[in-house]
């Protein structure tokens, strides 16, 4: 029997890893949970790049694929 899912929780994929978050979690909420609040990162949800001004408005849905990038050394 699959475990019934807590309706207050959902699972999203952050950089490929399944991550439990609250239902209706916003991008802002996710970044805070991950310790990235206020950090210099960029976020895409299901390939759509999320403008920083919209982090508080974009809510995540079950199985959303979230990419969170930072600047690293490169040429």
């Amino acid at each position: 029997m699959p475990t019934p899912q807590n309706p207050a929780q959902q699972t999203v994929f952050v950089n490929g890893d399944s991550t439990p978050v609250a239902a209706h979690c916003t991008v802002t909420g996710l970044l805070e949970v991950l310790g990235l609040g206020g950090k210099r990162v960029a976020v895409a949800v299901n390939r759509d790049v999320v403008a920083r001004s919209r982090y508080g408005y974009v809510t995540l849905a079950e199985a959303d694929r979230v990419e969170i990038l930072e600047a690293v050394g490169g040429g």
Partner: protein
Amino acid sequence: MSASETRDTWRVGKYEFGSRLIIGSGKYDSFEQNLECAEVSGAEMITVALRRVNFDAAKGPRLLDVISPDRFTILPNTAGCYTADDAITTARMGRELLDTDLIKLEVIGDERTLFPDVPATLEAAQVLINEGFTVLPYITDDPVACQRLAGMGCPAVMPLAAPIGSGMGIRNPANLRIILETVEVPVIVDAGVGTASDAALALELGATALLMNTAIAHAKDPVAMARAMRLGVEAGRLAYQSGRMPQRLYASASSPLDGLASY
């Protein structure tokens, strides 16, 4: 006033630079070494890549804490992208991350040579230009591809000297000369130089600027090589502006022929 006395700047989009050397931030031993090389090289623009956040390292200093956007113009790249779509999305991520319209567009076509996928680069460039990006495309040393990119609105083109990280120097100076003669926007030689004479040659040929990473980062003494590259770029630029003497096959004596002693 001679060329050496005027302030010799160049522009790309709304950005103006004094230094004609652009350096990368990859392959250094530390952020601090990268910063020291940047300072010594005189570079004003530094490339960065975009990758998934490293949660393990997230508590320590990050690249941009050391290579600060307050001090340098940061040029995000789309390195590692093999499709126009991935490069476009990465460019948009870079814009959000860095508040910049600059993008070094790379769409790679082959993992062994890292040569560009030219049609995919053209496709991505058009989309990004339409979205208001200042697109600096890494491209093969192909005059027609460079003309196409300039024609669609790239404010500079960045033909390669040799494969990325190869250090082989300028493999096709003739093509580079054709590009320089036929493309109206600044030409930034990008990738493949190995040492200071390569840098000087690029600028002597008339390149507006030069972008390098590995040649400095993988020198035995990166900081000293950063200085050598600065001097190479400056020497090449000055030689280009000075107008070199014509080459000739036979000698032309520098000492007078008149007044020779007869013993």
